[in-house]
């Protein structure tokens, strides 16, 4: 069965650069975790370290409470019982689908192997493609075979390195959801690495935002979005702008858009200048509102418009409005603040 994974303040070097810097997180059995971050943040290195391909210069990794990686010792990858899926699927080009999936089952009996392969392929919906070769399959099909191959030996942990990056939009989301369902069904534990927020949010139970080798915040997607703990995460996740404000009390902030009150509890002294995170969904369209802002840009999103609005002070905010309200650029739009999650950061003196 799957086992808990503990990554404890690991640091790694990759090609003479400090790629991972005291990264830590814990994963419970059955969790689908995501490492999210811009390229170069070290997420792939962390994955490689978990798999056993990357030596550590500090910290340790524990699987099922046993140390599998430390600066002194590394358990060889082939003994970790982990499965891995890659961005380029890495299917063995000279083997057909059936053989690819069976590749990790060489220690089983023939009958066992056949059964498992059959089951796995059914789960990914490719039982009719058994005798095809990788180059005869589409991108989505290839990734499914790769997934089946990785899962066939019942690994304790599944690792995925940008598995959907090579697929186009619609397929991506679909496959992401399918894979999630499959893994939940099996009860697998998974760590996925991606640079795409949408992938992470669709897929992950818990997401870690990485930056420069370090994990900024490790949280449920919802919390990341609505309660980012650092400026970086706030900027990285979702759309949003910052407007200036001042602390009015322990639970209130004064701003251009009025006195804001949400679920904020802060111990910053009254009068501290802060930046307030304002998401597009925090500003709603209200024709009856006295507060207006001028539309300077709009972006059609299908079911909504994303308006860029200018406040009287000159600050810009974003607002996501259902698209049956169509307003033109230059119009004044009535707006109302509806901030449930009030997130502020002390303003950094330039």
């Amino acid at each position, binding site marked *: *069965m*799957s*086992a808990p994974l503990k990554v404890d303040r690991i640091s790694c070097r990759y090609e003479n650069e400090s790629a991972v810097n005291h990264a830590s997180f814990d994963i419970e059995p059955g969790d689908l975790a995501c490492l999210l971050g811009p390229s170069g943040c070290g997420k792939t290195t962390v994955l*490689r370290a978990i*798999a*056993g*391909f990357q030596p550590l210069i500090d910290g340790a990794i524990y699987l*099922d409470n*046993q140390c*599998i990686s430390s600066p002194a*010792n*590394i*358990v*060889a*990858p*082939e*003994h*970790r*019982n*982990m*499965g*891995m899926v*890659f*961005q*380029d699927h*890495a299917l*063995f*080009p*000279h083997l057909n689908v059936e053989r690819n999936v069976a*590749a*990790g089952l*060489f*220690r089983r009996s023939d009958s066992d192997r056949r059964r*498992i392969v059959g*089951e796995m392929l059914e789960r990914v919906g490719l039982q009719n493609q058994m005798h095809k*070769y*990788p*180059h005869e399959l589409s991108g989505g099909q290839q990734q499914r075979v*790769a997934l089946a*191959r*990785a*899962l066939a*030996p*019942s*690994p*304790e942990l599944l*690792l995925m*390195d940008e598995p959907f990056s090579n697929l186009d939009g619609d397929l991506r989301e679909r496959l992401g959801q399918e894979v999630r369902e499959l893994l939940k069904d*099996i*009860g*697998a534990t998974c760590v996925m690495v991606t640079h795409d927020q949408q992938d992470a949010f669709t897929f992950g139970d818990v997401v870690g935002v990485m930056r420069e080798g370090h994990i900024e915040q490790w949280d449920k997607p919802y919390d990341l979005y609505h309660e980012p703990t650092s400026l970086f995460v706030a900027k990285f996740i979702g759309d949003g702008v910052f407007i200036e404000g001042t602390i009015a009390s322990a639970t209130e902030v004064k701003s251009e858009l009025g006195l804001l009150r949400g679920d904020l509890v802060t111990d910053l002294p009254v009068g501290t200048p802060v930046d307030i995170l304002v998401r597009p969904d925090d500003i709603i369209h209200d024709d009856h509102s006295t507060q207006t802002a001028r539309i300077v840009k709009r972006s059609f999103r299908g079911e909504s418009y994303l308006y860029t609005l200018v406040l009287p002070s000159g600050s810009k905010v974003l607002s996501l409005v259902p698209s049956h309200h169509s307003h033109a650029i230059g119009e004044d739009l009535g707006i109302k603040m509806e901030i449930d999650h009030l997130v502020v950061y002390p303003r950094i003196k330039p």
Partner: protein
Amino acid sequence: MAIASSSNTEQAQYRFSSALINSADPWRIGTVVIALLAILPVFAILWLAFFPTENIWPHLVKTSLPRYLQNTIVLMLGVGTSVFATGVSTAYLVSNYEFPFRRMFEWLLLLPLAFPAYVVAYLYTDLLEFAGPVQQGLRTLFGWQLASDYWFPNVRSMGGAVMLMGLVLYPYVYLLARSSFIEQSPNLSAVSRLSGRSPFKTFMFVSLPIARPAIAIGVALALMETLNDFGTVDFFSVHTLTAGIYDVWLNMGNLGGAAQIASVMLTFVVLLLSLEYVGRRRQRFYQSAGRFSNKQRKQLVGRSKWLAIFVCAAPVSLGFILPFLMLLKYAIQYFEQSWSPEFREYVFNSLYVSTTAAVVCATLAVVVCYGRRLHRSTSMIIAARIASVGYAVPGAVLAVGIVIPLASFDNAMDTFFRARFDISTGLMLTGTTFALIMTYVIRFLAISIGSVESSMSKISESVDMAARTLGYSASRTLGRFQLPLLKSGILTAALIVFVDTMKELPATLLLRPFNFETLSTHVYQFASDEMIEQSALGALCIVISGLLPVILLSKTISQSQSLASRA
């Protein structure tokens, strides 16, 4: 999961305790040992150079060394330019344009590889010298009598050497440039053409620079061969550093002096190896993961068509067809004389050492390349580089460098066994085919490493990682998942070593055991007495055996093209 078992957790304890990655794993050890063996002769030479019995370095520097240097540099520049021009132009034509016989030219252009340079040198001298048919014809035509009556370029000169070596060595550049051109995405040149550049400019500013790393490697290889050559430069009285080594060592009896010249040559060696290294580094980024799209070749018409045919036909005719026909003629003429039981023995000997060397080289190359792939540390990269050093060291120098350590080993063993067990083990390694084959292996390991590495680098690392996570150890990953995909690289490696060993001369002359003649030593013997006609049969055999691998090479290339394009 379907197979849930508590036994997994039980096993976990045992599993992890015995499964630690050993830094002393066989691949790493193997690579290091190979590297040490390869560099042993170089150390022996350097040792000799710095501690000679009679130091003639001051004399050398004052008199002959500057000339040797100059001649070597001129020769290398000349050959480098020649192989570049020939190799690149033919490769480009054959990959990008359609014209009559193009398919045939693709593999025909490889043929000169089968010819040893010195054989071609002797044949062309035969053809172009005063008494040869060309000058005879001219004299009859114009009524000249003596050499002093007219001017005809002297083949036995620096110019002749440059041209002939260029003729025989351009396939290295051709081969590599061609792979590069073929792999280039047609989109690149499409973009260039759309922005207004003519085909020629597109070639100069897009295709050529991208192929530069591959071309650099090809030129480096050709120049290493040039540096090594003794037969041609000796015959043509072009006094290069190699000739200097032979001279100082054999005519002046000063091995230390020879080792000193050899050390100077090592700087050239280092330069060439760096050139090749840089080329291979860049190549990694320039290679488009082996996706060969079906290239649209442009059909040539009219003058361009004929020009293309001419440009491709010239090197093939001059570098192979003409010399081959000459050899054929002499072989038939002198067949009875040449076909003796001794001759059959020479053939067997040549085949034996060449095949053994090829197999050993290919195996060791796989060890080194895989070792480097597994442990991506600077020390392993250096070890792999060191293992390649032998290629650039001239055969004769390598031979001396080998005899000394091997003989010391033999003598030490003998002394030991004599003292302990009162048995004389005698010479176990020196003077046997072991020494000879070891020299070949050290000398040609570079090219097999290069070929295997080039194939291995086309296999994405994720395939390795996938196999490992599925439970295959490093060794099994190599066996089950890499070797099938490396077949063409390994075959290429083995074939080229086979051909090179068949042609090899200087080291063979020095290291062969008693009564062990190979085809190459046999040909050299006769040719240097200007009796090449009698040994033409032998030369023909060398060339024919050199042909088969060359043709297979060509087939392998087109096969792997189609396999990779499907992947």
